[in-house]
């Protein structure tokens, strides 16, 4: 890529918007996943009995079971949210940038 092209793309408002919104979004989702997962792992390390508490008086099912399942579902939903937005909004911006430099 030539230097002029790099400068041209960097000055493109669509490109700036793409980089800004996408990195913000990626970081938010990454942090969400890390917070959920490390909260879970640290609970196991420091206070495992919190997850071992039964859900109710008449059941052996513990709090940890729905929480564990929920983390799996949460991970999947996060990938869905990102994929949907990236394949729509972000790709439109990227395509606009490509068009502006005659690449599509």
């Amino acid at each position, binding site marked *: *890529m030539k230097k002029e092209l*790099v400068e041209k*793309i*960097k000055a493109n408002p669509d*490109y700036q918007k*793409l*980089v800004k919104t*996408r990195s913000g979004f*990626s*970081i938010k*989702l*990454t942090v969400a*996943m*890390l917070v959920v*997962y*490390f909260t*879970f*792992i*640290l609970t*196991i*390390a*420091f206070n*495992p*009995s919190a*997850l*071992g508490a*039964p859900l109710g008086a008449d*059941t*052996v*099912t*513990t709090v*940890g*079971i729905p929480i*564990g*399942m929920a*983390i*799996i*579902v949460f*991970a*999947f939903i*996060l*990938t*869905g949210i*990102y*994929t949907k937005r*990236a*394949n729509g909004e972000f*790709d439109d911006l*990227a395509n606009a*940038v*490509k068009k502006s*430099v005659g*690449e599509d």
Partner: protein
Amino acid sequence: MFNRIFLFLILGAVAVMAGGAIEGEVAKQELNMSAIIMFLLFVGGTLGITYWAAKRTKSAKDFYTAGGGITGFQNGMAIAGDYMSAASFLGISGLVYLKGYDGLIYSIGFLVGWPVILFLIAEPLRNLGKYTFADVASYRLRQTPIRTLAASGSIATVILYLIAQMVGSGKLIQLLFGLNYEVAVILVGVLMVLYVTFGGMLATTWVQIIKAFLLLSGATFMAVAVMAHYDFSFGSLFAQAVEMKGIEVMSPGGLVSDPVSAISLAVALMFGTAGLPHILMRFFTVSDAKEARKSVFYATGFIGYFYILTFIIGFGAIVMVYTNPEYLDVAKQAVSGGSPILGGNNMAAIHLSHAVGGDFFLGFISAVAFATILAVVSGLTLAGASAISHDLYASVFKKGEVDSMKEMQVSKMATVALGIVAIIMGIAFEKQNIAFVVGLAFAIAASANFPVLMLSMYWKKLTTRGAVIGGSMGLATAVLLVILGPIVWVQILGNAEAIFPYKYPALFSVTVSFIAIWFFSITDNSQNAKNEHEMFEAQYIRSQTGIGAEGASEH
């Protein structure tokens, strides 16, 4: 000519198998006919696919990336297939069977790396790379040192993973099919070399997709059968399990006891996944970033679903296999008491398949388990062969001055060589304790491959010097800490106390790697470093927009 060699090799493979089967009968081991028939069907079908794929594999691009024409859904299934190895199917269901809730903790650790791969890695990787992740790491850095480092990390990861898979496969096949260990290992090695050398990535991908489909179907059937027994109530299933094994199965046990181990394991699983060469390579098989994202979305869905199934299967085994005299290892019980099951805890899912579906379904699951091993070792071997041919041969030794046909030939030779190494190692490690091997593979992937890849994509100030020193230090630290840790130092080498007290080194080795990369990059004032900083912006634009990225090939 190729086709003739191919037919010859198929006949050879079938002959080896038939020979082994007869031998099994002679040894009066229990021979599972339905398993063998279903396995032969799988092998026949996949060799058919390999034959079809061989005719479509004409260039290096076809060989490494199936021409870049795999769809997001197909690739998602193949990625899930790479990840759902026999070790995770039998190992995690066995762990749930043994410890209940702890098995779920492991599964979650294996899963949560995926969203992070999607948010941070999948897209720039697809936009910058061609065949291997070293393409990305060396995009603006010096080819020779970076590719050598990335290839060493890849080959180390691949060989360690291969050893674990080969030993597991030998034992599993011995147990399931009554074949002798060496025959089983050779059979796996020969078949994997066939798939990869003739069918390249296209065959490897389809073998993986078919196996993933079979595995998910079989596991779904088992989980549904278990739940049907309990009127689809988790409450009653768990109540029964608690009655048999005690209340401990419902809460976190001793698997991750201290905070350092817990975090270290989490780091290894998360970053290790993002540094596995055979997984990273899959992102080049799709046409663009859009399909790459879809791949991860589907893969995460399949893998998550699979882990929920293995959890149910593990509990199913507790209630249906645990005290069932049919699966009891009487000889072992006489020695050590308790109620050990035949073949050890990792056979829990296999016994459960018999408990819910009889001999026929046992045959199906056994065949699927074998198919799983074959598919995973094929993917690994292809990734290892690419590191040798594309990174070492074409880029380091020939400095890029090599035509695509020659490069493909070298990768086929590398595949055969890796097949031989895998067979020899598989046989050599038969009686060894290999519990540390997969952990070490993940630690290396997390400490050598991941930091270099990640920083090369996002950090402008990364220089060749920083990447090489930091990545090597990460690799060395991971290896050293595993050797000094409780598994190798105490259990294998027989010392009284571990020098490094934790089982999982990743927290330390990944930290060492990042800090060393940072330090040796920012203190690098060479002209070379300045050039590398300058090239960052063009690289970043390409990684963000896909301008200039590799497309799918024309056919």
